[in-house]
């Protein structure tokens, strides 16, 4: 068996709380182990080499969306990225577009909450407090599956970090926001009309700001059909706004 690979990890370092800190890349050497993910590599690095390194992992199973970062130029979930799929030199940067907390840790939570509030991205039910003793309302089984398909978004922020429009318009809601409108628009339990959705996403900060570069679609870790959803939503909003 061949000797394990030595990996060079170039990691973005900066602690905005520390006046002495300046943004820079720091290089660490890590010995690759079988099945090593970036979660395992960074955890080992922090345990053994540099206890000050800041990053965010929660589920470490690709479910929670905490660990989006730019890996060799591409936003992705670090926890489920195997080092063996990458070259021996790996550069890790925090997701752009979100406020930096430190090193690889960004504040995507505040961004997502603000987006949710702006788009009122929750189900607007006719009766939010139904009689819970009664049978539930029915739904077509295929429609339920279609809604879940869009409900699978984990708000990891990869689509926002990869978005060309976001670089120019900081108020752009991103594919994550447009997908939510598509999701609630598909749900017959939501009482909002297309005209009401138009008020939320009918401008340049919404669906008409999208330049259709569609990196969002390419980087989405959940492989959501963002390209199709944005196109459908745009057509629907054109009709609603006409």
């Amino acid at each position: 068996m061949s000797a394990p690979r030595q990996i060079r990890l170039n990691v973005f370092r900066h602690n905005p709380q520390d006046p002495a800190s300046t943004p820079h890349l720091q290089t660490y050497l890590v010995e690759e182990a079988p099945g090593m993910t970036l979660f395992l590599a960074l955890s080992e690095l922090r345990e053994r080499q540099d206890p000050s390194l800041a990053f965010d992992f929660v589920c470490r199973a690709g479910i929670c969306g905490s660990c989006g970062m730019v890996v060799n130029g591409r936003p992705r979930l670090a926890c489920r990225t195997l080092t063996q799929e990458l070259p021996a030199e790996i550069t890790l940067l925090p997701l752009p577009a979100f406020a930096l907390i430190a090193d690889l840790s960004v504040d995507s939570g505040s961004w997502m909450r603000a987006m949710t509030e702006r788009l009122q991205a929750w189900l607007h039910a006719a009766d939010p407090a139904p009689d819970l003793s009664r049978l539930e309302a029915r739904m077509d089984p295929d429609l339920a599956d279609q809604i879940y398909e869009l409900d699978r978004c984990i708000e990891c922020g990869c689509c926002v970090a990869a978005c060309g429009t976001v670089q120019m318009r900081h108020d752009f809601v991103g594919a994550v926001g447009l997908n939510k409108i598509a999701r609630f628009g598909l749900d017959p339990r939501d009482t909002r009309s297309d005209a009401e959705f138009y008020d939320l996403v009918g401008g340049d900060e919404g669906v008409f700001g999208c330049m259709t570069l569609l990196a969002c679609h390419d980087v989405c870790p959940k492989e959501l059909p963002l390209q199709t959803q944005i196109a459908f939503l745009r057509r629907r909003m054109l009709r609603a706004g006409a």
Partner: protein
Amino acid sequence: MKIVYTDVLVVGGGLAGLRVAVGVRRRGLDALVLSLVPPKRSHSAAAQGGMQASLANTTKGEGDNEDVHFEDTVRGSDWGADQPVVRMFVNTAPKAVRELAAWGVPWSRVRKGDREVIINGQRVTLTESEAAHGLLAQRDFGGTRKWRTCYVSDGTGHAMLYAVGDQAIAHGVPVHERKEALALLRDADRCCGAVVRDLATGELVAYVSRATVIATGGAGRLYRVTTNAVICEGMGAALALETGVVALGNMEAVQFHPTGIFPAGILVTEGCRGDGGLLRDAAGHRFMPDYEPEKKELASRDVVSRRMAEHIRKGHGAPSRFGPHLWLDITQLGRAHIDRNLREVKEICRYFLGVDPAEAWIPVHPAQHYTMGGIRTRHSGESPTLRGLFSAGEAACWDLHGFNRLGGNSVAETVVAGMIVGEFVADFCQGPGGEISIPTALVRDAVAAQQAALDALLGGGTESADAIRVEMQQVMTDRVGIFRDGASLTLAVEALEALLLRSRRIGVRSNAPGPNPELVTAYRVQRMLKVALCIACGALAREESRGAHFREDFPRRDDAHWLQRTLATWPDPAATRPTLAYEPLQVESMELPPGWRGYGERNHIEHPQTPARAASVEAARAIPGLHRYDLQRELMAYRHLLPPSLQGDNERLGEPLR
């Protein structure tokens, strides 16, 4: 000194905490949620397979109701559960699942007509009724007599968390993210908030509240191999424990899930086996029917995990460079089923194992999964020893699960407890004891005490927090796992005590301002060790086997001596072990008196009062013409314990409301 005021402080932004917050907001109170991470990243999202609620919509769920769910849960708990709490839970679960449907959860639905499923390795055709078309579907899970587990593909927890998280936003509940409670604020026997550290800036802030709810989830990271998220470190249990007056119940009751992927410990759902997946050994032999002819792969988790460990011990594990493991085979379910109902499993296999589960077997090994024990509360969620403190969800021990939790009952518990406890928290705040008057000096002293503890960690100690943490996790995995015995547990307690002493001499190398991950590890490991000692000491003292607690030197369940709940407190901060006390369970008032579970060993030692109680229950059951609701009330009245809004019956297709 910065002080934030709110009516209800909820510590923990997972499903239980968020549902409590929504409930108290609806009652006109302010609620504020503290969360280590953005709330939608909570470990609730990792619940895959589903939520138990006895809706009885599917053919295989026909005849299901609260009574069956109740009995399954009590048997699953190995009679450790509090039976009135189980009753409250099973009556509220259908309401909870229907509320979530109204809040937008895209539950998988029943489709009328024929469909092929795999049951016990055989292809079977099921016919779903026209009447059920479009209602919530249920799948099979371990330890249940009916198909009862409602699901959203295998992303159930995610869909639930997003719906409830969105409702919290819609209700204007503020969530203070990246905030960690370090200590409860306490004025004599009244809890009035918490001292909180900002994980981004390092600043300490006092949160003063009329009621405080701990909903921080479990403590899986005390173990080296766990399915739990990295934030599940038992900090809520430690918060309560460090008051010196609040007890942790049954901490030795720790669940090991049969199918953590090997070696990473990432969960693949019980839905795999519920949908027809099989466990195989190195030779490809399906071994569970040899041990459990009745329930096979779908016995309760404690039993399946133990049988797996036993089978590996006999030398039937598949060898690998990381040690032996077994196989989970879902190939016979077919690609279409996996693509539709087991999508997360497919993704996990693809990304972490490079395996396509439609074609290849999944390497699995039992891994720590769930903390049945927790902060001991009344049925209302309130601590009996510290007024104004409540707890809900996995962090709590009200005690729904006893010594083993059924799959699908935890994510159900989060929302059910949220609904119930939220009402009691609101009642408390609006009742005679709901106001507080707290001196600022008390708040200042509490903040200063926490700052002093942090300063001590930065003050040049010699021990490494990371090293202590790894050693603790190894001790717990090696000695406080699936198989336990007195000698090994004694060694575990001694090792943990030594680590606790060492943890008081930790020196953190970096004192840069802002996030200081090493400092976080340091103060957490000091607290984790106390929780770990509650588990190990409780396990050492409990000389019987019950549910997930299995003592090789005491292999029988001993109702005569151990039908008791362990209560661990830590009154002396300088001590190295908790103080253990016991709270007896009352056989004479049980609706389901102790007996055989229907799976596992059939060799328990009977409680002296069991025969008399069993006879009176049998006599009541023999009364002809008694409606099941009336019989139930006769055996163990519980509805008066529920908030009035949750006391009603549940409608089913085959069972209209009275």
